[in-house]
């Protein structure tokens, strides 16, 4: 186990290192991508541009710039180009919104996914199963930003059921926090609900065919007890691991589109804005942070798998 953890950690470091280099390089190939040009404004004289290059170290070799930036990231002192504010502070400021969004949505998609998945597994082959199947596939086929925008238009502009947009912190006003997040939660969840219900349905059908379930039924347990006590529980393990990863993905920047539409000012929106302004330091930090979450969670889930299911071999 210890060896496994060490191995995974080493891999993680390699992956994060490569991602940081790759991200840094992407923005070097852009013509006129020299950040000094953007910092200097449009009417800048060559003299001003030279001064900025000197100040920010853009005149140094690329690997020196990379090392400088990474050092600043690791010591927490990295400053963005466009607004020149501390990137980590800015991300910390965005985290509550992103976590609220991702957490709430993850609960919603898990609950709804479970309910719909169980329902269609129980009704497998019947009409209601087909309807649910098509509905889940419709959910999977809709881009989240279209759902978000249409929901915003109908339920906030047309009918003033929900506030227009923005984020209110939980500590400040729990009820407003909730109201402001209802639409984002559902816009983000729909696709996952569709997907989770499909996965759960097929997991449950597989489990239903297993011997021990048949044994349980033969013992005379009620169908409901068999389903809830055995089938659902067994089918949930792979679903939960999936859930962990998706949650990491969403917190790590996967909710960009929804955050942007609802102006939640979370980490995803910060990432989107930074990309638009080709602001390399925040992009670098957010990408690495997102990748970090995904890599760490997937490693943790691997470990969890071992704990839950000893049949799984540990190969890295």
């Amino acid at each position, binding site marked *: 186990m210890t060896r496994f953890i060490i191995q995974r950690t080493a*891999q993680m470091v390699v*992956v*994060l290192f490569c*991602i940081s280099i790759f*991200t840094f390089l*992407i923005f070097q*190939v*852009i*013509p*006129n991508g020299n950040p000094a040009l953007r910092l200097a404004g449009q009417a800048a004289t060559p003299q001003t541009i030279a001064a900025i290059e000197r100040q920010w170290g853009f005149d140094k070799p690329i690997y020196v710039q990379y090392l400088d930036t990474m050092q600043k990231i690791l010591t927490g002192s990295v400053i963005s180009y466009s607004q020149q504010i501390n990137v980590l502070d800015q991300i910390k400021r965005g985290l509550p919104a992103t976590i609220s969004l991702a957490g709430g949505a993850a609960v919603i998609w898990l609950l709804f996914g479970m309910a719909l998945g169980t329902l269609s597994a129980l009704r497998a082959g019947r009409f209601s199963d*087909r309807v649910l199947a*098509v509905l889940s596939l*419709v959910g*999977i*086929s*809709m*881009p*989240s*930003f*279209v759902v978000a*925008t*249409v929901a915003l*238009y109908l339920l906030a502009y047309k009918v003033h059921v929900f506030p227009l947009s923005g984020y209110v912190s939980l500590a400040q006003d729990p009820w407003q926090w909730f109201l402001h997040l209802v639409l984002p939660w559902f816009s983000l969840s729909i696709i*996952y609900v569709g*997907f989770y219900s*499909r*996965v759960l349905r097929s997991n449950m059908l597989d489990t239903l*065919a297993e011997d021990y379930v048949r044994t349980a039924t033969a013992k005379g347990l009620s169908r409901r007890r068999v389903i809830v006590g055995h089938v659902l529980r067994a089918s949930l393990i*792979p679903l939960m*691991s*999936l859930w962990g*990863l*998706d949650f*990491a*993905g*969403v917190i*790590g*920047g*996967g*909710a*960009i*589109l929804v955050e*942007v539409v609802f102006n939640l000012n979370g980490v995803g929106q910060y*990432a*989107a804005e930074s*990309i638009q302004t*080709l602001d390399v330091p925040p992009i670098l930090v*957010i*990408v690495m942070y*997102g*990748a970090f979450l*995904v*890599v760490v969670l*997937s490693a943790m*889930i*691997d470990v969890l798998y071992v704990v839950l299911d000893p*049949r*799984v*071999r540990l*190969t890295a």
Partner: protein
Amino acid sequence: MAINQSQPAERLPRAGGVGPLLLDDIVVDDVVPGIGHYRLAARRLRRDRTALLFGLLFILIVVACLLAPVYSHDIARIGPNVNNVTGTIKVDGHTVDVVSPDGIPVGPTWHARYFFGADTNGRDVAVRLLYGGRTSLAIGFMAAAITMIFGVAAGLAAGFYRGALDAVLARLLDIIWAYPAVLLGVAIGTSLALGGLKIGPLTIEGNSIFIPAFLIGFVYIPYVAKPIRGQVLALREKEFVDAARGLGCGSVRIMVREILPNLSSTIVVFVPLIVAGAILLEASLSFLGAGVQPPNASWGTMIQSGLPLLTTSPQLVLVPGGMLVLAVLGVNVFGEGVRDALDPKSQIRLGR
């Protein structure tokens, strides 16, 4: 159900926002390629009316988009990029501005010209819908081709050679996989849209649709390569591979002639998934300004540019949005039918 237990992480699909799709596990043991297997699958598919219906829907959409020039030339009589900002048209006997002085375009006329209304530049939405569909579908197919070629090649090589090559490829795939998908897409899309791409003698202009196609195809590679690798690991231990080796066949020949045919059903199952995911990802990237570059239309760019006028001209979003959902739904439902038909036990992860 047989569980491929070699790599737990492989069985874990992941999100990251856009469109991952992961093969959960496919039972390879009994899959013997050949007429029998596919004939059986075809028979199963033929019985699945829902799948066929949605497959037909998708084909209809493809055909309609292919016929875009005919519609544009003979029915609407207006090109996809023809601006008409200050013009007027007759609707039911009234003369109306195509674009009002406040910038609001005319709504659906339900006539040959401006059937679905006009966009902000006075262009025919119906014509652009079909032309945009060509772009979106082309990106979907191209991306799927790129993903399949590279994904299968990487999976094959990693699974077959194992060792150092496998380790290197696995890390490369991890990198793509751990990179937040939308961020990766937007970052590369933004940088390439400005400068284009130069690979040796090949130059791709910044506004070429090859860029989003390449990008999207690239993002999905790990989702194909990882499960393929797992399958190859199992297949390379089979007797027929040993037999081929015994006959003195080279590695490449074994991979192409012996192993690849055994992967065919997995590949067939993946194609519709990637196509659907790619069309959706294109829309997301266009929404963030990193997808198809104007004036080329795609469903994604049409939705994106229509959003500000959602309140006054909802058709600008609903028409391309509806078409997008229908096309993706068609592929998804048909794809699920194909999957069930090929291997009723397999599960595949569909992306967002």
